[in-house]
């Protein structure tokens, strides 16, 4: 057997961002649930701790989001190439990838997408990450910032339609992120072994089998 070929897929800033983000968002979801449903969920000793933790985690995620944006946009300068699906992706790629997930995966066929550092996401990933990182995350961060500064930004809040609209948006966006998280973590286990895709997100290096390509699918 040939020695396994390795690809350096996830640069260090991306990995730091990713895990800060992951722990941050899990914290946000859990504390957020307690803040919204205090009479059902009491994971943290008090409401105060839940709120303080939520605000802190929000800050961490916002900072790590900036790190991510800065890295791809300014340092690596390949943000658009990596995250925006091409015409081909939209026309054929998504269908092909969906067919893999929903049918040929079960038959044991290989993943049609072959990741390279410049094209590391399959067309479905691109679309999903694009929506998450360019729409969902900025919106949820923005609504969060408004919610932590209601007094000074009151007029802005009214302009948006009032506190209720703001809270509704923040909550529904959070539910979307939570839904994404379940799907995302599940898809991350679809590699050759359950940890095959998760390890590179930790070490940066993806092992490629000589006979069968292994690809991040999440």
């Amino acid at each position, binding site marked *: 057997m040939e020695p396994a070929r390795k690809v350096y897929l996830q640069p260090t800033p991306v990995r730091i961002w990713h895990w800060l983000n992951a722990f941050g968002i899990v914290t946000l979801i859990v504390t957020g649930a307690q*803040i*919204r*449903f*205090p*009479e059902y969920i009491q994971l943290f000793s*008090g*409401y*105060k701790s839940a*709120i*303080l933790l939520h*605000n802190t985690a929000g800050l961490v995620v916002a900072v790590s989001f900036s790190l991510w944006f800065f890295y791809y946009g300014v340092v690596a300068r390949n943000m658009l190439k990596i995250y925006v699906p091409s015409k081909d992706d939209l026309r054929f790629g998504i269908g092909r990838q969906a067919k893999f*997930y929903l049918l040929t*995966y*079960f*038959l*044991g*066929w290989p993943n049609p997408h072959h990741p390279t550092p410049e094209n590391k996401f399959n067309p479905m990933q691109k679309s999903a990450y694009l929506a998450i990182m360019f729409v969902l995350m900025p919106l949820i961060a923005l609504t969060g910032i408004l919610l*932590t500064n*209601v*007094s*000074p*930004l*009151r*007029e*802005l*809040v*009214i*302009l948006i*339609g*009032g*506190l*209720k*609209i703001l*809270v*509704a948006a923040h*909550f*529904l966006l*959070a*539910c*979307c992120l*939570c*839904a*994404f*998280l*379940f*799907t995302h*973590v*599940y*898809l991350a286990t*679809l590699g*050759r072994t359950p940890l095959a895709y998760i390890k590179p997100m930790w070490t940066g290096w993806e092992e490629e089998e000589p*006979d*069968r390509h292994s690809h991040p699918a999440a």
Partner: protein
Amino acid sequence: MCIHREPAFLPILLFLTFVIPAVAIAGNADCLVCHADADAVGETFRIDHLTFDTTAHAALGCRECHTSVTTDHPGDGIAPSKADCRGCHEAISAEYARSTHQANADCRDCHNPHVARGPAAVSGADMNRQCESCHGRLDTTLRHAEWLPQTDLHMAMLPCISCHTASEENVITLYIIRRSDTLLGDGQRLATYPELKELAEGKSISSLIDRNEDDYISLTELRMFNSDPENRMLRLQGMITPEAVTHDFRTLDNRWDCSFCHASGPGARQTSYVSLAREDGSYLRIAAEKGAVLDALYGTPDFYMVGATRSKVLDVIGMVIIAGGMVMPVGHGTLRFLTRKNREHKEEE
């Protein structure tokens, strides 16, 4: 006997209810000739005529509290005596005397005896003004910020006494707020009487919200107020105010617990009022429709109390979205498990 007694009793009653206050108010006028006029007595000794006449103390009359005032006043150069509140308000005085705050402030530090009003007639902002002279706003905010999230918001939305008196029963009182002219900064304030009067165009101010003037505000009326383009610069703001004021100002353990307020369910506040500025500086309180768990407040798009006023509909939509996220792990995961043989086979090749 009884037959004779009644007619005799009635005039006495009439005398007590109408003539004595009328005499007292006439007596007030004797003093107010000078004392309502800053030019005659100077700003420190001026008493606002309109304000005083509508307070609970007006019926007592100036002399009742300034007993030693002589006919030669002010020529005699003797400062008239000033009544001690304790003489008439025994229960409250006894309660306050037992509190730790008693050493810090006297009745008169918080109350102007010429502006004596019950809590329903005082706005939340005015209640806080009673504390502000000693507990400066910035200092108080900083002290509470050590543990209280969203401190500035709490300080703006709660009278201090909601947390610092023992009264457990709170209501939601809605005030008409004038929005700020600038986009940033906290420039909003209570709408004043002249502003509301102008808006009411000759009708009573309560008709701005209580459109059918039945002294009761329905959900529809609240919504109409909010959606009326004439009221663009106004909005309703809810405050949590205590229904009864106890005078044992101190830190209460259960106010540390946010769920004292931030929880929904049967224990949550159901009663709400709208409170409107009156010409004399007091506030008129009108009952608003009672609703299951604050539903009445859905009429005010800008009142949201985290943990307490969440929308059930949104909760359901949110749960559906999250359940959507489970479809992939559960559905795909099941098929994945059932077809695991296919992939093992390929692996061995």
